């Protein structure tokens, strides 16, 4: 029995990992242009970026998942809806890009002006200043908030069940309906704990690697 439950939950956890992995990769990348948008000197772009971030951070992720899944069909008659998984991924990527963009922005804006000015007086180009002087300092600054946000993402994947994506919590809950078993749902917690534990170790390793200098 225990083995059967474990297999089922692993099946669910693979969905959890897919949501986690794909969201992480795409929103880490998408967060960057949004961050630069939010810091742009071109006002309309800055306004657009910041409004986007405000709207995304100001509403629940669960609601965003529902809107992406059901919304298009409500607005355009006859449009074929996104698959459940795609809808979840789209909503998650949008949501996490907004959060990551704010972390990037905080990291970049936290670099003292003197760093740019010192590099400028030494004749460096804008891109040299960014890549050779600023970037590593930004990375060091954002690792701790990033780690937090990524651990939150692991647990947020459970929101996917609102549109019936069969991630691990959904699988655990099924045992209540089909077999009147409650413990499999509790057991799902172990999967999260182990995975978050591994991530925590990875983040600690990265922080240690960047420990040789202080910002």
């Amino acid at each position, binding site marked *: 029995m225990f083995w059967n439950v474990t297999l089922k939950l692993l099946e669910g956890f693979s969905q959890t990992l897919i949501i986690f992995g794909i969201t992480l990769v795409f929103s880490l990348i998408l967060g960057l242009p949004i961050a630069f948008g939010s810091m742009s000197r071109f006002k309309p772009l800055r306004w657009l970026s910041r409004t986007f971030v405000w709207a995304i951070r100001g509403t629940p992720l669960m609601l965003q998942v529902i809107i992406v899944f059901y919304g298009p069909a409500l607005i355009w008659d006859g449009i074929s809806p996104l698959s459940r998984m795609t809808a979840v991924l789209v909503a998650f990527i949008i949501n996490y890009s907004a959060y990551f963009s704010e972390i990037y922005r905080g990291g970049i804006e936290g670099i003292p002006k003197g*760093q740019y000015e*010192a590099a400028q*007086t*030494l004749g*460096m180009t804008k891109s040299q200043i960014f890549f050779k002087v600023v970037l590593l300092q930004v990375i060091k600054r954002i690792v701790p908030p990033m780690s937090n946000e990524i651990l939150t993402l692991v647990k947020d994947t459970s929101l996917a069940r609102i549109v019936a994506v069969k991630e691990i919590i959904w699988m655990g809950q099924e045992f209540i309906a089909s077999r009147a078993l409650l413990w499999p749902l509790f057991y799902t917690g172990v999967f999260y704990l182990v995975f978050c534990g591994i991530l925590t170790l990875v983040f600690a390793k990265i922080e240690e690697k960047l420990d040789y*200098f202080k910002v």
Partner: protein
Amino acid sequence: MDMADIKTPILEVNNLSKRFGKVEVFKDISFAMEKGAVMALIGSSGSGKTTLLRCLNFLETPDHGRISVHGNCLFDADDHSTHQEKDIRHKRLHFGLVFQSFNLFPQYSALRNVTLATELLAKEQPGYRTGKGQMIKDIRERAEHLLEQVGLSDKLNNYPHQLSGGQQQRVAIARALAVNPDILCFDEPTSALDPELTGEVLKVIQSLADLNTTMLIVTHEMSFARDVADTVAFMDSGSIVEQGPPSQVISNPKEARTRQFLERYLGNS
């Protein structure tokens, strides 16, 4: 070198003005410096000394006036062809700036702080592809020499956070010298330091003066200014009020404003 070369000042500033919105920081500033000269710029807080250095280093854009180095006009407020973004980077190299707060790059060792900019500049040179190895080696050797000159040959591989303020500032001086500026500017190089650390930095600046490095030094250390400078300029509310040899400006000021200012700073020197 013929006589004309010797007579052309290395730096000429003409009628330079700068305002931030309604605040007029300085107006109609003019002065010149000979090669190898050391000029100390003194003046009370808010008189525009930092802003003047920042204008020379193209970190701020003056509203009026001209800046010339070796007789070449680098900046003329009335001539927009001198404002081109792409040229500014190279014009900056005529000046070096040592900041009050050091601004070393924290992720690099002392040595790397000194070599970084020079290595990046070397990449732009035509012979870089073929002569890379030798160039990098030369740059490294020169950086080691500069760090030795500021008394830090035993700290080459230390990161900035492993250095005292005085040591960090000396690395910053070596870093500024690495790109061979014509005029090295200092903005209160010792005012962020504990009193017991100012001496080592001032000594390094004095040794540079002995090597005929052209320097423009903003400082509140009056006795240091008297010892190191050929010329002292006193700035007050946006203009140079009095300028001359230290024996005159510091020891025998003509202007009442200079006297008042010096009386307040007497305790510091």
